[in-house]
């Protein structure tokens, strides 16, 4: 039995100035009258991690979309999320971090009431979307306003076009036919940065795309409903580093139009994309603060230990 020296613990220390953060480029492109901008912030070939200053959105850009108030989720007798409260804002990327089994994913899934589909799950507390209690919104309507992307790329077994059009069509309907939908589908694909790659293959089966393309198709699908909030559950954990970078760039760009919440197991990823970070531990929300603060000067001892790699 050979003894292997453990890799050195990567410590994040120093001031904000030491932190390599992608530059905040501000809202780019002009509004298209739909609440979205045709931003092209990352297509000019500039290095993504150019700036040294924290990439935090100006407060004026941030709009409160959701409020989580005293949320608890139980699976039978096991408490997965305990009394959690925090806001979710458009214009910011919120990263949920924490060790495995700390309730990040459960928390994310309760935002669009997907937890209700799990047997034995019960929820207390209140979540509002634009001031309205989500419990009073019809679940299918809520899930079109708060859409979700999953850990594994999961395009539906249909063409690339139909994957996006499926979201736009009425429930199980196959109508309206293509011409009427084309613009909306292409817009969603463009927002996910996939349109140029798949323009010729819109009628090909989506499951033949590469993993990274599949995941961006899933993002396009989630964006097609024109949601206020986009939930991402470890969207890059099944992808290679290149695809991961493409999707991270996309996430940063998307926060202008939608509130983005990303669950990630990967601290570096949270560090790269997040404006705000919520650190969860054993179901509790230990710390909710700006990314700058969580990574450089966390208030809580547990947060400090986690981000410095002492556990997790």
């Amino acid at each position, binding site marked *: 039995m050979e003894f292997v020296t453990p890799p050195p613990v990567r410590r994040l220390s120093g001031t904000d100035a030491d932190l390599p953060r992608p530059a905040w480029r501000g809202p780019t492109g002009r509004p298209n009258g739909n609440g979205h901008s045709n931003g092209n912030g990352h297509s000019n070939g500039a290095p993504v991690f150019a700036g040294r200053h924290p990439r935090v959105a100006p407060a004026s850009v941030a709009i409160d979309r959701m409020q989580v108030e005293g949320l608890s989720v139980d699976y039978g007798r096991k408490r997965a999320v305990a009394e959690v409260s925090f806001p979710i804002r458009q214009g910011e990327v919120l990263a949920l971090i924490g060790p495995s089994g700390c309730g990040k994913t459960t928390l994310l899934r309760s935002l669009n009431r997907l937890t209700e*589909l799990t047997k034995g799950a019960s929820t207390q507390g209140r979540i509002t979307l634009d001031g309205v209690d989500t419990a009073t919104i019809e679940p299918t309507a809520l*899930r*079109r306003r708060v859409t979700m992307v999953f850990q594994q790329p*999961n395009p*539906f077994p249909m063409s690339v076009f139909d994957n996006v059009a*499926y979201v736009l069509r009425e429930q199980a309907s196959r109508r309206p036919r293509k011409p009427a939908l084309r613009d909306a589908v292409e817009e969603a694909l463009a927002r996910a940065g996939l349109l140029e790659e798949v323009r010729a293959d819109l009628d090909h089966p989506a*499951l033949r795309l590469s993993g990274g393309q599949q995941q961006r198709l899933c993002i396009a699908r*989630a964006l*097609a409903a024109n949601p206020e909030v986009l939930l991402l559950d470890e969207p890059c954990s099944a992808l290679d580093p290149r695809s991961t970078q493409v999707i991270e760039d996309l996430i940063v760009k998307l926060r202008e139009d939608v509130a983005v919440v990303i669950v990630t197991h990967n601290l570096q990823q949270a560090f790269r994309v997040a404006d705000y970070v919520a650190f969860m531990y054993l179901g509790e929300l230990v710390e909710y603060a700006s990314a700058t603060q969580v990574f450089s000067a966390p208030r809580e001892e547990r947060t400090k230990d986690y981000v410095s790699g002492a556990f997790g």
Partner: protein
Amino acid sequence: MTNAQTVAAAPLPPSATRRNESSASWRLTDRIGLAFAWFLGLLFCMITAAIVLYLLVQGITYLRPSLLVTNPSSGFSESQTGGFLDPLIDTVVIAAMSMAIAVPIGIAIAVWLSEFGRPAVLARVVESTIEMLAGTPSILLALFGTLLFEAPWLGFLSRTSGSVVFGRSFFAAAAMLSLLALPLVVTSVREGLQAIPSHVREASYAVGKTKTATTRRVLLPAARPSVLTGSMLGLGRVIGDTAIVVLLLGNTVTNDPSGSVPILSTLRGTGSTLTSYVFFNAPTGDGDQPGKAYAAAFVLLLMVLALNLGVDLVGRRGRSFRWSS
């Protein structure tokens, strides 16, 4: 999952790459076991090959194209007894009718079991009913069918004479044959649905789709290879069954329609399929025309082999593009 992929991608340690180790280094018992496994494997291949070859030779000897286009007739020699046009057509008709019943019902049951399945007690009852049906000898289903279709209120499905219902017809046989195919369809479709990772369902719910929309547009298309596989397996079972056909299709060698409405009269009447034709013409049967039996059996074998090939192809194609769980 992610970790496992990472590990698999890393170069394997030397011990794991040494795949082609010689069985000479094994213990004696293990070597005997290996030899036994080889022996049995080859034995079963040989038995199957023998059956196919035997029927192939016999079939080629006795099969004439004219047999496929002439109807059976009574007689005492091979030249008098005609071909098996009606049994051939009836095989196709009865298979189509049975599958028309079994496939939609089977899909419905599988979807309900896999996606809804509440109350759980009812689901368990349905499950064990399907299992019991799969294990029921077809002669029992046939016997039950004769009782059922002799009921006066089902008289419109078969020949009647006064108040007596004959109870043997295409409808009766197809209904009971569909019960043979049903468990295979249900099991296959259900496995296909359960093989779809739950995150695919949730992805559909997460864009505001209902359970029914998800089932129709995402789950059933994804389970299509399983639907096809189950249908083909069921079809093979239906085509190959003899007991139900002999008891419920009336076992008249040619079609014997009942009534005056063109197609309905045939379906209400009696007939025979390739299996019952073989049964009738086998050396121990009433017809005793072994040459005709071999020819018909050969055609039957070809149909079943084609189905198995189809199952194989569909299964292979269905596996190519899937989600990771």
